[in-house]
């Protein structure tokens, strides 16, 4: 599931600084926690929280700088091309370095819809 093969899993948890692109706000994230859960545990609400499982798209962000590991996420909200350019769901992403991010929550009813849906 690792689509960022250069960013290996550290043996001991590392603490990384997650900065928003506006440079006004940041939080610390352990490499063991998804960015979204790390943000919640830091008591912040910088990224909208939805299902925390890669399904609903609420926590979509763009990663502008830094290394990360990501798990599988719904193709309704992130196409392979978008994912290659750093658009991800924060609940499925684990920091492997300090990161600069910006929220990119989708509008309601704008899912790609063409992914694997029919049985």
């Amino acid at each position, binding site marked *: *599931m690792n689509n960022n093969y250069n960013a290996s899993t550290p043996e001991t948890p590392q603490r990384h600084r997650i900065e928003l692109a506006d440079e006004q706000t940041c939080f610390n994230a352990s490499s063991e926690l998804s960015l979204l859960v790390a943000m919640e545990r830091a008591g912040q609400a910088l990224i909208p*929280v*939805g*299902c*925390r*499982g*890669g*399904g*609903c798209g*609420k926590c979509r962000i763009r990663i502008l700088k830094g290394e990360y590991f990501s*798990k*599988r*996420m*719904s*193709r*309704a909200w992130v196409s392979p091309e978008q994912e290659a350019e750093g658009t991800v769901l924060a*609940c499925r992403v684990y920091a492997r370095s300090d990161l600069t991010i910006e929220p990119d929550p989708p509008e*309601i*009813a*704008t*899912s790609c*819809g063409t*992914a*694997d*849906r*029919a*049985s």
Partner: protein
Amino acid sequence: MKKGVMRPGHIQLRVLDMDEALNHYVNLLGMIEMDRDAQGRVYLKGWTEVDKYSLVLRQADQPGMDFVGFKCLDEATIDRLSADLQAAGVATEEIAAGDLKDCGRRIAFTVPTGHRFELFATKEQTGKWGVGNRNPEAWPRDLKGMKATRFDHCLLYGTDVAATAKLLTDVLGMDLAEQVVDPEGKQLAAFMTASMKAHDVAFIEHPEPGKFHHASFFLETWNDVLKAADLISMTDTSIDIGPTRHGLTHGQTIYFFDPSGNRNEVFAGGDYHYPDHEPVTWDAEQLGKAIFYHDRQLNERFLTVLT
């Protein structure tokens, strides 16, 4: 008027990772794994269910619901309802027996909210899990987690709830048990039943068709709902809201998410419905209380987080 549709018999959900999903549905909810098929789908049930399975999981790259299937009295009912659907202008597709393991033919069609429905009448019956059918004990002793008893209903979000409710009422013989209406009288939510349950399937109006809100599983008591909440914390499972009570149906409930972001509910209690009962109506301005009776506030996540 009843037309031979009995109950929601199965729901097929898409998950991103089958191993993670099975850990959730088997070890946390306490569903029983019953079988697997050549496509890699896994078949599960709650322990009180007589049919072989009610939950089918399929690994895919987009979570959500593939379809919900309603079990009908017999094959003649399937023929009759299939003809009635076509007469009502609804295109139907017959899926051959055996496509779902140990299940007979299914008639599939799409309702106006954009969801795929199925009717079927035949499925292998393996009986309640862990207890017999003759002088049965109260419950099996080796259940896991929340000990979910059955798949109870699902809530679906989509376009034109009113047309869907009318189709299910007029053609399939379900009843409207509860509804939410706006000041102009437009139906924003419809809770439909084919039985005495407060809902066998429910719909909420939403601009995108075919969205999945939650699959719900029945527990016996309020204390079971509390223990489910404990298990959600013990396992660091993604929580949505609860334990609390609904205004709609008055069930005692907790919401959480499976590892692919599909919402689950476990609940206890709730109202009942007979065919001669008028629908219960909630006004849209009371929607906060209708959904979460104690909070009494509109919950943005509940209304917009979908798969």
